């Protein structure tokens, strides 16, 4: 059952990822990204990380992709000249993709070396919320603080960026 679910969700997620990359229409791409995130959230559930699944949906699907959709719709960049891909770009990116896929295949077929036996799972620690809290407020307290500052700075940055400045010349 679990195996079947994994393969189902994996195929779905990968398909949606292809959709993000290959779609002409940016709205379609954003919706594909949303579905892809839902797939990953369900993979998190399979991995017993319920909290992270909920957070992923809340932050990513609920806010980030919604923002993307917002901007895509507001800018409405359907117009403009569609230039064909340059040969070099296409070639280079395909080669990169191929190389990475080779890496993926090697990962998949790696002989599992004792460290993580597939059958015997460790006890799921990610299900208990208290564990997260303890770790966040002891070992990772400094990163949490830094994250707070980062968010503050990002907020200020966005406010400054989205303000219109008068008398600034256009960069040509």
């Amino acid at each position: 059952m679990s195996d079947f679910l994994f393969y189902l969700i994996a195929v779905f997620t990968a398909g949606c990822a292809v959709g993000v990359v290959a779609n002409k229409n940016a709205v379609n791409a954003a919706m594909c990204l949303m579905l892809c995130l839902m797939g990953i959230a369900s993979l998190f559930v399979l991995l017993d990380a319920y909290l992270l699944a909920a957070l992923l949906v809340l932050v990513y699907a609920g806010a980030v992709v919604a923002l993307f959709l917002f901007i895509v719709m507001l800018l409405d960049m359907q117009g403009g000249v569609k230039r064909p891909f340059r040969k070099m770009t296409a070639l280079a990116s395909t080669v990169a993709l191929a190389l990475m896929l080779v890496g993926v295949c090697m990962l998949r077929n790696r002989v599992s070396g004792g460290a993580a036996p597939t059958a015997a799972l460790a006890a799921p620690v990610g299900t208990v919320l208290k564990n997260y809290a303890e770790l966040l407020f002891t070992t990772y307290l400094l990163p949490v603080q830094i994250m707070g500052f980062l968010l503050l700075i990002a907020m200020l940055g966005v406010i400054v960026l989205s303000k219109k400045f008068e008398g600034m010349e256009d960069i040509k």
Partner: protein
Amino acid sequence: MLDFFFHWPLWAQSAVKGLAVIAVLFPFAAACSMAERKICAWIQGRPGPNRTIVPWLAWIPVIAPFLQRLGLFQLAADGGKFVFKEDPIPGHVNKLYFVLAPILAMIPALTTVTIVPFGAYFNQAGQLVPLVLANVDIGLLAVFAISSLGVYSVILAGWASNSKYPFLGSIRASAQLISYELSMTLSVLPVFLWINKPGGAGTLSLFAAVEAQSGQGLHFDSLWLGIWMPVSAFIFLVALFAETNRQPFDMAESEADLVGGFHTEYGAFKWSLFFVAEYAHMIVGSGVFTLMFLGGWNPLPGLPLAAVVHGLEHWISWASHPAFMGVLGVLIFLGKVAFFIFFFMWVRWTLPRFRYDQIMKLGWQKLLPLAIGNLIFYALLIALIDR
């Protein structure tokens, strides 16, 4: 009693649960639309719908006229109208997303119900077990996560309609949804700080929230959180109004300046899906509010359901039977939810709509600082109490 159910395969159980959600929530939403008509009629000094009758029922002498005067069949007439009307798809719309949007509106509305507990009973071992479809540890966070997906239906409906007013309406509505989500989340943090105070459960589940209000007698632990944290309850309530797009905040519709908001171009069944989704959101929102701030299925502060049942055992021997207790709990819970739905409608037919700038100002400049201040205050207070 229900053992046979738990022996079924998982997919069958899930399917039954899913059908149950639909079978319960749709009539509830329809009943809400009925209640809305009646209440708005009473407030405006009218009798409300009281004419509809099914032909072959009209022959029953006393009951049929009574039901007719109550207007109960208006539900069926409305529903039938939505199903049988012509379902137009205007030209120049993005067909895929135009059809997808109302369906997307239903998904969060129907999914969140599974996480909301609606009653409790004692099992054989004497433990209190919640009546809930999926008792997850991250309860409230899951509700927030799923309901945050509701913004997609609004955005997509407005955009796919390919028309100015729906688009403006959807932009406004989704900005409003995102803005008030913040205050809403911040307002419930004190509640869970209190529940998870040192020695507490370490959970976000709504059942735990009710248990924290189930103390007996008049002391601190038995207070309903709405009394103990009125500011949180207030902020949550206001944000709930905004999140469900109800009257003083119904920027999504604002028919005076935007024709009909994001669903201007919709008709018939697709429109009714938006409509049902709004009521389903309202029901779930009221349920969450009741669970967190009004003691869930406990009848009175300081008088939990368990105490009532044990008290009744002196007179009625089967009072602590799971079925009786479950039904009692569900009835008390539904009573509170019904009051809140009434409150939603009462407010709707009392207040005019806010202007858009007022809404944004209220959300960002008043509610958000208030929520942050409230959080800090209760964090300090709980720390002091626990020392």
